[in-house]
């Protein structure tokens, strides 16, 4: 759940001009709200929090005055889903055109709101000529979700800008778009590194094995986020046997990098996680100590 300190209600009733000035002096932690803490605004229900003066904020957003618009966004964004009533206005002003900085702030606000209805407007922004805006639109689509977001992110994986492609691939994993796994494999073959992690999040048994098979052609560093994801998925999605197989293949690498991954997984392994898998990880960590060239003891279990 996103947490932020509610601003004084009086602040929300300040004049627009004062708000605009205040926004420039607000502490960054407050302005960035939940996003500053690195947590996605995943909740869908409006949280308890400060009551927003929606009509006033709408008026500011429609003012076409950059300062006022920025001030309104600074209030709406940390409100997260509570600012949902502002989403249609935000979508409209985005569609009608904004300078780059305001577009980015508006998209971040829509991301914080996380309303699926915003995916259409954000999808339009993925056509923008400025790659910075396309990246931001792709990031926001991950938060707004829905079929339109999935479709737009799939398109973004073919974007001319590498960063847009990476955001899109990562996003498809986060959105659970299992139907996109074949496309993510294509992206992986085209050096879209984030596709590995996304595949790890979404793959079925055969696809997970397909990812393992990539070890002969794609560097371990790129693939390891995918293996990490597979190992931490619930047993209902990925069997222990498959996880042990993954551990075995990583162990076979016998490199410093493989040992680092295994140790990292070992350190994060849930107390209630599979004992069988844990045992395989423990043995693999020992077997890969010493880094590159170290011979693994025994085969994969």
């Amino acid at each position, binding site marked *: 759940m996103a947490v932020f300190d509610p601003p004084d209600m009086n602040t929300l009733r300040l004049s627009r001009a004062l708000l605009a000035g205040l926004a420039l002096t607000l502490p960054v932690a407050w302005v960035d709200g939940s996003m500053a803490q690195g947590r996605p605004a995943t909740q869908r229900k409006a949280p308890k929090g400060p009551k927003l003066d929606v009509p006033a904020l709408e008026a500011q957003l429609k003012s076409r005055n950059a300062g006022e618009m920025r001030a309104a966004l600074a209030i709406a964004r940390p409100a997260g889903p509570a600012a949902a009533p502002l989403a249609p206005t935000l979508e409209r002003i985005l569609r009608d*055109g904004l300078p780059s900085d305001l577009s980015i702030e508006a998209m971040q606000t829509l991301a914080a709101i996380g309303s699926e209805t915003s995916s259409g407007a954000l999808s339009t922004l993925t*056509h*923008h000529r400025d790659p910075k805006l396309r990246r931001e639109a792709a990031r926001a689509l991950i938060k707004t979700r829905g079929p339109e977001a999935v479709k737009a992110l799939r398109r973004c994986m073919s974007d001319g800008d590498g960063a847009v*492609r990476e955001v899109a691939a990562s996003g498809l994993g986060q959105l659970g778009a299992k139907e996109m796994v074949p*496309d993510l494999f294509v992206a992986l073959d085209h050096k879209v590194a984030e596709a590995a992690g996304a595949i790890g999040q979404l793959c079925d048994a055969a696809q997970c094995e397909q990812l393992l098979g990539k070890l002969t052609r794609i560097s371990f560093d790129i693939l390891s986020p995918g293996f990490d994801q597979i190992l931490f998925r619930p047993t209902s999605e990925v069997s222990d046997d498959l996880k042990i197989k993954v551990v075995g293949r990583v162990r076979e690498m016998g490199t410093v990098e493989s040992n680092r991954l295994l140790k990292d997984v070992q350190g994060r392994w849930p107390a209630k996680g599979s004992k069988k898998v844990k045992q395989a990880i423990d043995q693999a960590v020992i077997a890969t100590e010493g880094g590159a060239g170290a011979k693994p003891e025994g085969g994969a279990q």
Partner: protein
Amino acid sequence: MKRLAVLLAIASVSCAGGQTRIGKVFDTTWQDDGGRSITTVRERLGGYVVPRGANVAVGVVGDGLVGISLDSGQKWKFAHALDARPFITGQVVVGTGGGSLFALDAGTGRKLWERASGGQVRGAGDDGTTTVVSLAPSTNQGGVLLAIGRDGYVDRQLELDIPAGRPAVAANLAFIPWQNQYVTVYDLASGDEVARATFRHQTSHAIAIDGTLYFGEIGLTRFDDKIGGASKDQASFVDLPSRELPGSPRWLRPGGQVLAKTTDATDSIRLYARPAKGGDKLTIDSDRYYATYYHAVLGFRASAGELAWVRLIGEDAIAGTSYAQGMAVCDRKGGLHFFDAASGAPAGQMSLGAELQSCTMQTDAFSKKPDVAQVQPLVQQISEAIRTKETEMVMIQRFLIRELTGQPGEIATRKLIELATDPRMSSVLMPEVREGLSARRNGLEYMTQALAKRYDYLADVVTPPPVGPIAFALAAMDEKRTAPVLLEYLLDPQTTTDDLKHTALALSKLAGAEQLEGLVTFVALNRCVADDDELIQAMAAVARTILRIEGGKGSARLQAWAADSLTTSAVREMLGGLTRTGTNPPPAK
């Protein structure tokens, strides 16, 4: 004995006909005789045929000459110092170097004679009995003309104090072009100038081709029963169509000049043609003349100058020759390539077997059968020639792109699209390819196929189609059906601003109400960020289209954008101008 017999025969002709002396040789006070004297010589010679020359290629190498008979393939070598490029005439090769003048049998390389000489060869003619050689003296003033028999003895020596061209000899009469306008007929037996003709076209060569004499440089005048009309431009004359070609190649170099033994660019950029045999009107054989431009060999229709074919060779062409229904080129590595006149189909290859400093070729009565299996459509030939990577070929490639653009068939459109999307294509040529494509007015199917291949990183389509030129052509073809796909390109960030501008202009003619939403989106997305001139031009075209489609509502929309302080000043200015004038856009060209 044979030589004596010929001399006697000529003497007989002279005595019987009363060969007359027209005055002092090369007299510059001579008054044009209206063709009387040259006509008399022509009548005296009657059906005389100059003996056919050898079919041969001769190359200059480090230690002398290499040669090959084009008939038998027999190769020969001749070691000798050289100070100038040799001349092939009739059945002999004439060269100078190391203080001597020599003649070889062209077919075998056997030395016929050699004699001491201080000059450099600058022209030669041969009639099977006598060789006339024009030598430039070491002082570079004047020169000397020698008439030498097969035995190597000089029958006649004529000091030249005029700028003489390349001479020919027939029936013991030397034909000497001079001052670029006269041909003096000099009787080698008597030492008299027995005739002179004045030419209205620059003339510095006298050449025997297929048994007949020709005079010229810019075109050729045939020595026939109309030769008396030369001074009134009424002789049998043929020249090549005037058309601009890369490097401005010439048919014949100015005659009477010493050619360096090492090749130069003029040898690689040349025209070749052969006068057609017989016929009342002088024409060009096979209606073809040829050009070389380094690796490219081109055939043109002699009647109209249109490109008929183009072929590539692996090395720079440095010499060539034309023969009945064909032509041959000699390349820097000693390769000889033969081509069919009509189609350009290869008709064989030979090799001198050595890298050459220069090359000289002669074909007279010669033919080669083409490999009909290698006949290709012209469009195919052009597109292959355009793809070659050599930087020295850029000029001819530009020329070929224009030729491709001028081809009427839809296949030319397809080829231009292929070239525009070919990653191997030189970027230097891309503007010409795109311009050519925008000028097309057919090939809709190929254009729409190209537009279907949009930029798609995952599908490995990373070179977008040339949407700008295609859009331009589609607008000219009034293909409104293509408006939806063009709109997709307008909203595609991978479309370059140059292409965007042309796409927007095309849509100003092709777009309808169905495209309005997309057009509005385009302006909206860009109006607050655009500062690039081409992008603003694209927006202006789109704004005009919105005005056309929406009328008053569109005007209000544009005014609102123009009034918005968040719109960039450049866009506000552009929109303000449009709403003030309220002009509808002119249709895309």
